């Protein structure tokens, strides 16, 4: 081969390496950007007057007088809408029966969508569900619902080779020449005044309970559940993992037993997480009956088993990294072996062990599969500490799955889903950042 070709190959090889790293970084950015941008909208969004009204009536938050004034102003802007509709009702009452039926149906549909957008018309009986008691509380949802008011959906199945195509038909066409014709431009142009959206920072998303199937409120039960599960797992995993690491590094003699132990630990690390979940169900709940059914306790124990190998490995590594001279110094001063471990080796290895613990905490917080059958439920109240022994809990990872796939109105609560994902990712990232910083400090200390 010519030298120039070899050099070209060399350069393209280097380029390949760079590209793969760029792709990796890009993948991370592609993943995190939507989560961060759309997740932040759970906290920071343009809240309509309906949001403030809801906060006042249900949570007693906000200034009643101010909100009252605002409500009156928006009601004034909305009145023409209702006036137009009642006028139209009068109009169609004079039509023939068949026509009347059709028009009435059209009007009923329109009324439903307007109700979704603005809340129940004044004077009507209050519905049961919160979501029906108020109009859209978020401006971007209000815009989405505006589309439904303005346009009628129709499916076109004319081409049998393709899937059905959605066609949007403006509703103005249905009501041409009637008193409702002006309704649509009026709503479109005055929606802002009807809802008066304002940028709001809803930090209580983290600490509010959820209401009406996550339509309103925050994610406190899930947060608390995740905290319980994570801390519970750590309570089991840390002592066992650190003790096992001490035994493996300081006491165990090389031999068959130890190599079997090591193989088992690495096997445990390789067991798929869903199998842990099944095992937790079959062993903790069905066999030793640690609780009636799913409980935080059973979930924590399952998670603890899952992260045990990580904790053992990290602690082992940290203990091995302690210079042997420390041990020699302690022993030469007449410390017993156990005393040496407690007073010299563990303190010196502590930052390394902490790093491992923090990373496995992140892992425990984010795992879903092991808690599906052992701890997680989709709806629940925040638990008290003692209830964790017997009660299941909602948890962030499980509810992300649940809300994104099984919720009755997946699209309506995207902001909650993204908010949950952001919260979980942030929790894990903060833990990992802490680990990275810890490690940097250790390596600095070892160098210094």
């Amino acid at each position, binding site marked *: *081969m*010519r030298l120039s*070709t*070899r050099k*070209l*190959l*060399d350069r*393209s*090889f280097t380029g*390949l*390496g*760079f590209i*793969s*790293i760029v792709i*990796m*970084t890009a*993948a*991370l950015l592609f*993943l995190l950007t939507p989560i961060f941008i759309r997740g932040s909208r759970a906290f920071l969004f343009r809240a309509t007057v309906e949001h403030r009204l809801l906060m006042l009536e249900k949570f007693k938050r906000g200034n009643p007088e101010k909100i009252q004034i605002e409500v009156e102003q928006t009601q004034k802007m909305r009145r023409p809408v209702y006036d137009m509709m009642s006028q139209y009702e009068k109009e169609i009452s004079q039509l023939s029966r068949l026509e009347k039926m059709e028009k009435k149906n059209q009007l009923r549909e329109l009324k439903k969508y307007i109700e979704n957008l603005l809340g129940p018309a004044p004077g009507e009986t209050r519905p049961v569900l919160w979501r029906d008691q108020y109009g859209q509380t978020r401006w971007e949802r209000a815009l989405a619902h505006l589309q439904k008011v303005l346009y009628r959906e129709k499916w076109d199945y004319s081409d049998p080779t393709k899937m059905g195509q959605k066609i949007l038909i403006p509703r103005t066409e249905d009501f041409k020449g009637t008193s409702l014709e002006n309704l649509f431009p009026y709503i479109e142009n005055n929606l802002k005044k009807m809802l008066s959206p304002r940028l709001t920072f809803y930090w209580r998303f983290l600490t509010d309970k959820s209401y009406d199937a996550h339509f309103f409120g925050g994610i406190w039960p899930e947060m608390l559940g995740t905290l319980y599960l994570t801390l519970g797992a750590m309570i089991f995993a840390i002592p*066992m993992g650190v*003790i096992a690491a*001490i*035994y*493996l590094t300081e*006491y*165990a003699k090389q031999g068959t037993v130890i190599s079997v*132990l090591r*193989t*088992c*630990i*690495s096997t445990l*690390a*390789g*067991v*798929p997480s*869903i*199998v842990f*979940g*099944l095992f937790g169900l*079959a*062993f903790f709940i069905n066999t030793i009956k640690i609780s009636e059914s799913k409980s935080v306790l059973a979930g924590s124990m399952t998670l603890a*088993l899952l992260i*045990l190998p990580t904790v053992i490995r990290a602690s082992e590594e940290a203990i091995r990294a302690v210079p042997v001279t420390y041990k020699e110094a302690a022993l030469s001063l007449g410390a017993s072996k*156990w005393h040496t471990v407690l007073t010299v080796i563990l303190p010196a290895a502590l930052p390394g062990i902490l790093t491992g613990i923090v990373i496995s905490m992140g892992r425990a917080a*984010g*795992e*879903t*599969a092991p808690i*599906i059958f052992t701890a997680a439920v989709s709806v629940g109240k925040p638990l008290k500490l003692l209830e964790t022994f017997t009660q299941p809990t909602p948890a962030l990872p499980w509810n*992300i*799955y649940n809300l*994104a796939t099984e919720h009755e109105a997946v699209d309506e609560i995207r902001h909650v*889903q993204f908010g949950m*994902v952001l919260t*979980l990712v942030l929790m*894990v*990232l903060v*833990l*990992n950042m802490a680990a*990275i910083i810890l490690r940097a400090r250790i390596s600095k200390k070892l160098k210094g």
Partner: protein
Amino acid sequence: MFQNTKNKRESLLLSERAHRLQRVGSFLGQGFLFFITSISTLAVLFIIFFIAKDALPFFQLEGFREFFTSTHWYPSAEKPEFGVMAIFYGSAMVTIGAILVAVPLGISAAVCLSDVLPFIVRQYVKPVIEILAAIPSVAYGFFALVVFAPTLQKHGGHLLSVASWLILTPLAVIFIIVISDLTTTRLSDKVRNPSRLAIIIFLGICFAWGLFQMSHYFNGIIITSGTNALNVSIILGIMALPTVVSVSEDALQAAGRELREGSYALGATRAETIIRTIIPAASSGILAATILGVMRAIGETMVVWMASGNAAQVPKPWYNFLSPVRTLTATIAGDMGEADHVTGSSRYHVLFAMALSLLLFSFLANLASEWIVVREQKKLGK
């Protein structure tokens, strides 16, 4: 200085009782430590035992034949069928897909990290890998379902054709230049350059035509559902990437500076050194990395459950990555909810049978990777 204390030396000898006490104490202490340590061992054995215990009734009830041969998965039909082959196939398919993404990317990233990037840059890339590894699987699954799947559904064909251009064009250029060089080395100086040019032009036209055909084909593809094997493969590949990168980077580093210097001293370029010397030397580590990546992909639940489409069918044609599939993990996670309360039914036990096959696979894969590592250590030791 401590003259006064020097006379009161404690004896070096342990009394008979203290001696016995110390021995018993250290025996008990070590026993306690050993017991705690072996809990993780016990856990593995318990896991295998309890999964097997609930898996075997299925084979008693239904026999082995249907499970391993049929592709019909209708567990809730009036006459239920429990053919798991389609689900096995789905698992295998997304795993292979993930490996196709993760291994080439991972190894070249590892090479770049260990041999190309300066130390300072490496310090910034490492956290990227760590964060990729740390992000919870449900977040990946959510991304795959809510962001990636709609994108794939809307612009899938275009994305595929752009991706094929981006990947294949540089490869084709390099290939053409190397081929033209190799075929013309033996020619005499006079004819070499013109003939090389001719070959380059000819091959270039061929490849360009091929690429255009391909991108045209891809552009025409309509992806009916964004939740399919391709989506899951890509996401799983990215999830397995950190494992592959860090394990194979360790292997590459372990190959040692002497080997590199030896190769450089003979006038090899960096690429030649790495491909001909370092990668063969680190091959077993890279193989172990691949196995670990496979384990990560096959054991992953949330992503496949959320974004694979969950259709228990063998895609048609069999290599069609654009059709929805269903995997073992997703089936266990999804069906357990319905089977939960009917302990003792085939429906409940078949899920444990699936878990058992997953478990056995991961066990074997783990043993294989350990065996590879041990063999390598022995080789290096000798």
